[in-house]
């Protein structure tokens, strides 16, 4: 009897209007790193569900203040009612951009892959330019990228081309697909090489299906159509793989796009099936370990390391597999620093009017990193690493770098 009744009535309000699940408890505002650092941001509760109640497809979008949302998603993982707070903000911002047009900066930052292809082709010149004060001043004036923000170095040899020359191992237990993302392809090929070496060491063959940018730079720069275009293309190609083939990502945010945002935010057909097969690299290695399949014949790595958990990793809902993995390695002295968001949030902290705010958000983390005085700060996300290096003047690495060292691939 109970079942019949609950089928008829239960939770209908939330199903028909999910925004009504918001009870205005304000938990999101208390964890929001932007709201913690500035009083000009009205906070996720107001800009998300509260404003959403007044938004309509027929009316022009009101976008004031929305750009201050950095997209860290801490509000969403915190919400006790699972309200998709940040998605409401993104959709409204995107609608505003569709109606009012996009800025040059939104176009540039949204087209990371195009930009990186160009940067990589002209690597020495692009890197020189990115470090030249005059160029940076122009870049700030014309595009709106803050002159003090160090930009990633481009590499002439991309991971894609390296992989083509890389001989495939002969005897393997299984094959996985690697979604390496723009960062590994154009800026940190070494990380990709390490991922491949580690997997191969464990008897796993790695293939790299053709891929586009995951789309997150476009999402956060008010261009969801572009993100959907990239995402659909990725989903199409990844769907062509054998249905039981796992997909590995080494970038936290790319992984989250594939796992979750393609299906939910961008509503791409077939994305759920693909997302269910996507694993973060450390998550995957830990699974191998639990199944007794990980080679744990590690060399000692005598280093004092500090682990910073990226915000988007929290959205994965898998804990911090990197810390579990690193504790298997002899010699590693690992501490966790828990000072919240680093502040960069992808392209957010690059923008001229957001740079100072981004440094303020990260200041607590920078202080903790300086006080700890470790050899390196580990973070799974590439822009977190950029920010920690810039803000705390420390070295940083992906946790995989330490695993690779322990296998003698340092």
């Amino acid at each position, binding site marked *: 009897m*109970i079942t019949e*009744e*609950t089928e008829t*009535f*239960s*939770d*209908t309000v939330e199903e028909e209007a999910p925004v009504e699940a918001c009870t205005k*408890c*304000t*938990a999101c*505002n*208390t*964890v929001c790193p932007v709201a*913690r650092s500035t*009083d000009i941001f009205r906070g996720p509760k107001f800009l998300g569900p509260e404003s959403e109640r007044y938004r309509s497809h027929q009316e022009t979008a009101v976008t004031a203040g929305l750009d201050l949302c950095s997209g860290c998603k*801490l509000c969403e*993982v*915190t*919400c*006790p*009612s*699972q309200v998709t707070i940040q998605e409401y903000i993104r959709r409204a911002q995107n609608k505003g951009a569709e109606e009012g047009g996009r800025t040059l900066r939104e176009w540039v930052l949204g087209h990371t892959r195009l930009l990186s292809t160009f940067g990589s082709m002209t690597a020495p010149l692009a890197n020189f330019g990115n470090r030249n004060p005059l160029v940076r001043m122009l870049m700030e004036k014309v595009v709106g990228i803050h002159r003090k923000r160090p930009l990633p170095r481009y590499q002439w040899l991309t991971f894609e081309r390296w992989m083509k020359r890389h001989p495939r191992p002969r005897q393997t237990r299984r094959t996985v697909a690697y979604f390496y993302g723009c960062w590994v392809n154009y800026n940190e090929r070494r990380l990709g090489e390490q991922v491949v070496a580690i997997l191969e060491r464990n008897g796993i063959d790695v293939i790299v299906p053709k891929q586009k940018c995951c789309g997150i730079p476009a999402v956060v720069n008010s261009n969801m159509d572009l993100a959907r275009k990239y995402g659909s293309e990725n989903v199409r190609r990844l769907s062509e793989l054998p249905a039981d083939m796992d997909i590995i990502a080494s970038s936290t945010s790319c992984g*989250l796009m*594939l*796992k*979750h945002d393609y299906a939910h935010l961008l509503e791409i057909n077939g994305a759920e099936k693909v*997302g*269910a097969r*996507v694993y973060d690299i450390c998550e995957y290695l*830990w699974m191998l370990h*639990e199944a007794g399949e990980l080679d744990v014949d590690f060399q000692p790595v005598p280093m004092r390391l500090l682990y910073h958990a990226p915000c988007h990793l*929290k*959205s*994965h*809902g*898998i*804990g*911090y597999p990197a*810390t*579990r993995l690193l504790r298997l390695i002899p010699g590693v002295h690992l*501490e*966790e620093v*828990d000072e919240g968001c680093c502040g960069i949030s992808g392209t957010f902290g690059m923008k001229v009017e957001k740079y100072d705010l981004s440094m303020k958000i990260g200041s607590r983390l920078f202080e903790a990193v300086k006080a700890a005085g470790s050899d390196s700060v580990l973070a799974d996300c590439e822009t977190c690493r950029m920010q920690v290096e810039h803000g705390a003047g420390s070295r940083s690495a992906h946790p995989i770098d330490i695993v690779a060292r322990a296998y003698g691939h340092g």
Partner: protein
Amino acid sequence: MKADIAVVGSGLAALVATRTLHQAGRNAVLIWPGLSSLYFTYATIDVLGYSDLTTTRPVEQPEAGVAQLIADHPDHPYALAGLEGLRSGTTLLIEWLRAAGFAWQGDLGRNLLLPTAIGTPKPSCLVPDSMAAGDLRRDDPIVFCGFHGYEDFVPELAASNLSRSWGRGEHSVRAVRITLPSFEPGNLFTSIDLARSFEDTTFRREVASRIRREIGVDGVRVGIPAVLGLTHDTDVYSSFAAEVGHPVFEIPTLPPSVLGLRLFDRLRKHIQESGVEMIWAAPAHEAEVSDGQCRRIFLKSAGREQPIEARAYVLALEDTVDGALRAGVHSMVDPFFHEALAHHEMPTERTDESLFKPQPYASIGYRVTRRLQPSDDAGRPLAGNVFVAGGAIAGYDPVGTKSRGGLAIATGYRAAQEAMAA
């Protein structure tokens, strides 16, 4: 993912259970939903304020009160946890608070009586130092100080209510308001905004001097809303009290609770930095049971359900606050075993119209065995290796009897002991 013991929850019960397991050298993983139920509670630790829902006379000696309660009601969750559970859990928590850098006071032997934001006396057992000067067992006059534009604390209301019940003479309670620097009374601001501002030395000194000037006389103590810093480590309270020149006490206001935030964030960091794995995830659900044992539970992770495989589980859910228990129109069904925890013909049966009367919904939860295992109608455990702690246990109203904290500690501690033995 595998663990020795998985604890699900985010309130005091979950924290105490996790700490108990960690201290015993067990590999615990804490699955929490990214916020704490402490954000929504008073965040003092109330062991027993009233012996039942009808009396208005506060309990003076909580430990003795609990012993009497156990003797009178052998099925009460305190009886299941045992007085020993309460004592050991409290010792563990007090030591932990000290280790994490908190300054708290109180013991199980006696209750303090503290004024609430509406000026009613409330019995509490363990409280932060920053609240202790409000103790109504002291006789010195009280000045409630509010801030223009901050509507979550109305000093006149607190003063008027307290002067009626406290009875220390006509001029023993009064209310003042000051204007805060850099906060326009016409703007919207919350206790969180204020708490951040109070971490700034210049702001704090200016407020202190305005309060001092406004009060003008000596020999009083000052009650202000609990906004003295959002993180504990800045030691805002002691500097501020010195600057005001009177004993100062904080009064908790509406959620999100600044005191709860301070408490939880600090303990969470402490436990995480001590090496306990915490999984920040959407609610856990779905217990996979075979042969009377829970084999796995599942997390709603990005992209797929994430199994957690443990030898034993502690479900330290706090009512509905951490999102695990959700009410439908008629029923509340638990997300792990799909047991109906409550059924009402009309949703209104769950609530009493008066906010100040006992609320039926407050006592909804899992029926448990004497070992705190969730059980079916007939009292048979739903799974032998699952143990329930805190507000998710049925049959008591933690708000009405002012016993939320003590029960969280006692059942959290006891559930952890049972989980280790399972």
